[in-house]
C-alpha cells in the first residue's frame, strides 16, 4: 500500500475520506475492530483499513444482506464491526438491520457513503435521500451525519467507544473543513458554530457549510443567525435545539435528504413537543432528482447557502 492514510484534514475533503482515516486509526488502536464492505471498499475508503489489516477485513461482494448478517454474527464474538457500502445499498439490507442488529441491540456500525443528491452524476438510483429517516425510525440506533472529514474521522472513534448499533452517513464529494482534527466528537451534542438571536439554522452533513454561507449573507442584512451543526440526528440535542428556539423564535433545518423524516422531521417532533416555533425544512422536496453535477443539483434543488438564506427570510415573515 503506497497510499498514506491522512491523520487529519486541513483542505476540503469528502467525509468518506474522514471515515477511511478514522477506521484506519481505530483499527490500529483497537484490535477488536473489523470491517466489511460490499464491493465498494475503494470508494468507501474501508480499503485503507483493509490493506493494513487484511485478516480483519471481510469483502462480502455485492451482497449487502450477507454483509450485515455477517457483521451481526461477528459482533457476538467480541469483535467490533464496521460495515460499509453506498448509503443507498445499505437500504437493501434494511430489514436485516432492523431484525438482526437493531432489535437485539448488537454492536454493529452501518456506514453509508455517497449519501444524498451530492452523489450527482450517477443519478436518482444512487442518491440516498431517505436513509437517515429509516435508520432514525429504528429503536436502539444512533444516526450521525458528520459535517466534514475531521468530524467523520472523530465520529468513528466516538462510535467505536460504545456498544450498540449506529448509522454513519458520508459524502462522495469534497466539503470544506469546518472542524479541527483534534476536536473530540460527542454523539448527540450539537456544536453552536455561530451564535445568533434572530433565527436558527440547524444543518447536517454537506449543508453545514452552506448554512455558514447563509449566515454571512444574512449578517450583511443585519439578521443574526445561530448556526447549529446537527451532526447527530438520533438522538437530537434537544437542549441545544430548544434553547435556540427560545432564543431566536424561528428555525430552519437543512440536509441533503428528503424533508420527510430525518433532521427536519426530528426537529419538528422535538420542537412540537417542547417549544413550537415557525419552522421551515430545507432539503429534497419529496421527489427523486436526476443525474447532474453535484453543484448543478444543489443549485436546482435549493441546497445552496443562497437558498438557505431565502428560507430564513421566509420563516421570519411567519414569526409573530
Amino acid at each position, binding site marked *: 500500500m503506497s497510499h498514506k492514510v491522512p491523520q487529519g484534514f486541513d483542505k476540503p475533503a469528502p467525509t468518506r475520506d474522514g471515515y477511511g482515516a478514522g477506521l484506519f486509526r481505530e483499527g490500529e488502536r483497537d484490535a477488536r475492530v*473489523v470491517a466489511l464492505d460490499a464491493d465498494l471498499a475503494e470508494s468507501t475508503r474501508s480499503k485503507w483499513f483493509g490493506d493494513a489489516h487484511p485478516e480483519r477485513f*471481510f469483502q462480502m461482494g455485492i451482497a449487502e*444482506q450477507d454483509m450485515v*448478517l455477517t457483521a451481526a454474527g461477528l459482533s457476538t*464474538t467480541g*469483535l467490533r464491526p464496521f460495515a460499509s457500502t453506498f448509503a443507498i445499498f445499505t437500504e437493501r439490507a434494511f430489514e436485516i438491520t432492523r431484525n438482526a442488529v437493531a*432489535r*437485539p441491540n448488537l454492536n454493529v456500525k452501518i456506514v453509508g457513503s455517497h449519501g444524498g443528491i451530492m452523489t450527482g452524476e450517477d443519478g436518482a438510483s444512487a442518491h440516498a435521500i431517505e436513509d437517515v429517516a429509516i435508520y432514525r425510525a429504528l429503536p436502539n440506533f444512533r444516526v450521525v451525519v458528520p459535517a466534514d472529514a475531521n468530524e467523520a474521522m472523530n465520529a468513528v472513534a466516538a462510535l467505536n467507544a460504545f456498544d450498540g448499533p449506529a448509522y454513519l452517513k458520508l459524502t462522495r464529494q469534497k466539503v470544506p473543513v469546518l472542524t479541527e482534527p483534534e476536536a473530540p466528537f460527542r454523539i448527540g451534542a450539537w456544536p453552536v458554530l455561530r451564535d445568533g438571536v434572530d433565527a436558527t439554522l440547524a444543518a447536517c452533513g454537506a449543508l453545514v457549510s452552506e448554512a455558514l454561507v447563509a449566515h454571512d449573507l444574512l449578517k450583511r442584512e443585519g439578521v443574526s443567525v445561530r448556526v447549529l451543526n446537527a451532526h447527530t440526528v438520533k438522538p437530537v440535542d434537544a437542549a441545544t435545539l430548544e434553547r435556540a428556539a427560545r432564543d431566536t423564535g424561528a428555525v430552519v433545518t437543512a440536509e441533503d435528504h428528503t424533508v420527510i423524516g430525518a433532521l427536519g422531521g426530528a426537529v419538528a417532533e422535538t420542537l412540537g413537543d417542547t417549544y413550537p416555533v415557525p419552522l421551515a425544512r430545507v432539503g429534497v422536496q419529496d421527489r427523486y432528482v436526476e443525474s447532474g453535477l453535484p453543484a448543478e443539483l444543489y443549485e436546482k434543488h435549493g441546497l445552496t447557502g443562497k437558498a438557505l438564506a431565502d428560507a430564513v427570510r421566509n420563516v421570519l415573515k411567519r414569526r409573530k
Partner: protein
Amino acid sequence: MLPVALAPAKPNLDELKEAARRVRVDVLRMTHKAQSGHPGGSMSMAELLVALYATRLRVDPRDPKKQGRDRFILSKGHTCPGLYAVLAERGFFSREEFKGLRRAGHLLQGHTDHKIPGVDMSAGSLGMGLGFGNGVALGERLAGRSTRVWVMLGDGECQEGSVWESAMTTPFRKLDNLTCIVDWNQIQIDGFVKDVKDLEPFADKWRAFGWDVREFNGHDLKEVLAAYDYADSRVGSGKPVLLLAKTEKGNGVSFMRLKADYHGRALTDDEMKRALAELGEEFTGAI
C-alpha cells in the same frame, strides 16, 4: 432431563427417543396454553434437536454466554417452542417458563430472542441464520477458537435470497467449522414447498454452491447421529457440510403430520386429547 454434557456424550438411543417424545409433548402443551405458536415445524426437528443438544453442543447452562461455546442458530426462529423444550431439558431455564410463552412480562418470546438463556440468535424473520452463523464462525476462527457453529434452516426458508448470498460465503471462506442443517419437512404456510415454489434439485444446488451434502432420515436417531458424526469428521476439510434432514411437519401425531394447518396454530382441547394420547400422555390442561 437430558444429560448435562459439556463435551459430546455417548448417545443412548432410548434416552434420546424418550427426550424427543417429551419435546413433542412440551411443544403441544406450551402452544396450547398460549393459544398460538408453531407446533408443526417444532415437531419435525425433535430428533435433530435432542441429538444435537445431548451429544454435540459444548454449552454450559450455568454460563449461557460462555466465550467459545458451541452455537446453535435456529434460523427458522418461529419453531422456538421446540428449542425452548430442549433448552429447559438441558437446564438453561425452568420448565415453569413454558406457561408464559408469548405472554407479556414473561421470558419465552414468540420467536427466538437472545435474552433467553441458551438462545444464540434473535431470529424470527427468515433467511438470516446462515449469514449470522457465518459471522460467528469467522469471529471464532479469528480468535483461534475451535468453536462449532450449527445453523438450522427450514426448507421453505431457502426460498429467501439472503440464504443463498450466505451459502456462497461459507465455502468461499472455508468455514468448515459451520454445519448447516435443513429441516426438510416439506410444507410451508401456503402448502407443500414443491407446489409453492419447488426447490428441487435441492441437494444439487447446495453442491453447486460448494457444500458437502448428506441426506438422511431426520426422524431416525441412528441416521441423525451418523450424520452429525460425518459433519464433525469434515471439520478441517475446507468444505462446509449441509445436512439435508428428510422430515415431516407435525411428525409424531397422526393427524398433524404433513398438514400445513399445523404450521402456525395451537391445537384445540379436543385435538390435544387425541394428540397427547398418541404421545402417551393425558390432556389435563396443565403444562
